[in-house]
């Protein structure tokens, strides 16, 4: 058969645009574009509204002043900003060393063992535990035993929440360190502790830091775990062992408040939280790209 016969027999290799198969493909392609648009609309809407409503209220003074009394204008969220830094800081002090040491086992000593596999599994399950349940856990462990809501209780809840993320990102970062580093160090006579702490860990530090930054930014925005651990405080907290305000709790409380001044602060607080996430995401992107 020669090719003209092929064509005349209607067996052209090209499908006609009107054939059902082609039509189906075109319709589905349009559907895929619609899906992407539908997914991006909420993102655009959320960032747009947070920017518009938050930016008008954001100024240096909101970081230094106390929230206004109900019905009064002005004020800021200085105490909540400091409170978030404190609770997240306490969480970091607990979760980062714990997570990194656990990750060292998973990537350096326990690789491919049953124990590491089990820990990996449990870590992933832990990261799926609802944050409100972690809040309840922290309540019964810290708040009930100390008898008070506090920055420490909030920090403990956030630490539990951050731990799986830190373990996973640190283990990944350590695993990415080329094996030649370990072999060279061992060949020069290093012990395992020297190889790990002086060669492998420093090489992985940039990637670990990136993971930690992302975890911290997430923790700063988490509300459910601090609801009944750090609780809230309209004033400056004077000790780590008393109720303390956080940005996320302030947004939650003031969002449902009938007073415009407090609603404005909720939007401004949201903007701060979103910017935190955005900046850390972009920074981590840049670090990953540079490698």
């Amino acid at each position, binding site marked *: 058969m020669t090719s003209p016969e092929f064509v005349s027999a209607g067996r052209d290799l090209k*499908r006609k645009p009107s054939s059902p*198969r082609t039509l189906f*493909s075109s319709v589905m*392609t349009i559907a*895929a*574009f*619609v*899906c*992407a648009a*539908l*997914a991006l609309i*909420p*993102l655009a*809407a*959320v960032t747009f*509204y*947070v920017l518009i409503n938050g930016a008008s209220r954001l100024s240096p003074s909101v970081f230094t002043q106390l929230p206004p009394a109900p019905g009064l204008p002005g004020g800021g969220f200085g105490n909540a900003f400091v409170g978030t830094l404190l609770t997240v800081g306490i969480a970091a002090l607990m979760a980062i060393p714990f997570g990194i*040491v*656990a990750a060292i*086992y*998973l990537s*350096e000593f326990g690789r491919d063992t049953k*124990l590491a596999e*089990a*820990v990996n*599994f*449990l*870590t992933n*399950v*832990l990261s*799926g*535990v609802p944050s*409100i*349940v*972690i809040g*309840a*856990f922290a*309540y*019964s*462990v810290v708040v009930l035993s100390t008898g008070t809501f506090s920055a420490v209780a909030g920090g403990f809840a956030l630490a539990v929440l951050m731990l*799986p993320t830190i*373990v996973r990102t640190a283990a990944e970062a350590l695993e990415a360190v080329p094996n030649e580093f370990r072999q060279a160090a061992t060949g020069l006579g290093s012990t395992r*502790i020297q190889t790990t702490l002086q060669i492998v860990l420093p090489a992985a530090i940039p990637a670990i830091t990136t993971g930690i930054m*992302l975890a911290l*930014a997430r923790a700063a*925005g*988490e*509300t*459910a775990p601090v609801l*009944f651990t750090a*609780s809230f405080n309209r004033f400056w907290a004077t000790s780590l062992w008393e109720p303390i305000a956080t940005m*996320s709790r302030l*947004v*939650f409380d003031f*969002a*449902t408040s009938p007073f415009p001044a407090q*609603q404005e602060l909720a939007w401004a607080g*949201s903007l701060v939280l979103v910017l935190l*996430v955005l900046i850390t*995401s972009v920074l981590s992107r840049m670090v990953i790209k540079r490698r």
Partner: protein
Amino acid sequence: MATSADRSSPMSWRRSKADRSIDTGFVWLTAAFAIGVGVLLLTIAGQVGTDALPAIQKFGLSFLVTSRWSVQDDIFGALTQIYGTLVTSFLALLLAVPIGIGVALFLSEDFLPPRVKQPIVFLVELLAAIPSVVYGLWGIFVLIPVLRPFGIWLNANFGWIPIFSTPPAGPGIYAAGIILAIMILPIIAAISRDALVAVPAELRQASYGLGATRWETIFKVLLPAAFSGIVGGIMLALGRAMGETMAVTMVIGNVDTIRSFSILSQGSTVASLLANQFAEASGLQVASLLYAALILFFLTLVVNVLAELIVRRFSMKL
């Protein structure tokens, strides 16, 4: 000479006993911390379970099937909240699964040049990182007013269907479902995309070579090949939706009893119940709240373990 004396012993290159035991100790220390992460999960379950015990003993399994939540009378049943959790999660999946998979396909196949695609991948990931409380704030002031006329229309025209049988009160179960859909969509999209990208290129080429169109290839080759990964992603998203607290609490209305099966009516979820009552609770109420938390913990645990096993099996195959 000192140096030659050192070298004279053939055993001198060996580490000292102290050195070796420090080294072994270090390995054991790291192992202890790793085990600690696992133990933490068990501790959470144990602690919440122990504190819930008074309520478990008092109400038993009737806690799951009664809907009276009365602080004055010390009678608690979480059916309303369990129902709310399941319905909002189901609604969220209904909306987010097709769109999420659509986005995953859009971002894994070559519909767009990489230069346009990469930023979109980043933006969708960013959607997952926006704090829940910010979605809640947006839900109160933007989403609910936008949805309201739509809800009124549904009730006016389809009110004979039980799920649309009440006029919308503003906040409600449907608003919570939509917020949840927005929040879990990036999870479904990201994991499905990973699963699709991992399908070997040969399968795609072979399908095209046989004359299949792009969408025939997607439906008959790519989606079946990536199926378990996509299902794993959906399960993870379901777990997230059931446990999501702040955004839901802010838009669902928080009523303690089911008044109707309408999705336009107000409701509450286990998570929103905890968020609302925990800080001011005392006595048996605390135990009941922790019982509810235990149920939520158990539900999400089952879903997450299943997801984990499915995703794990899928990544083994690669």
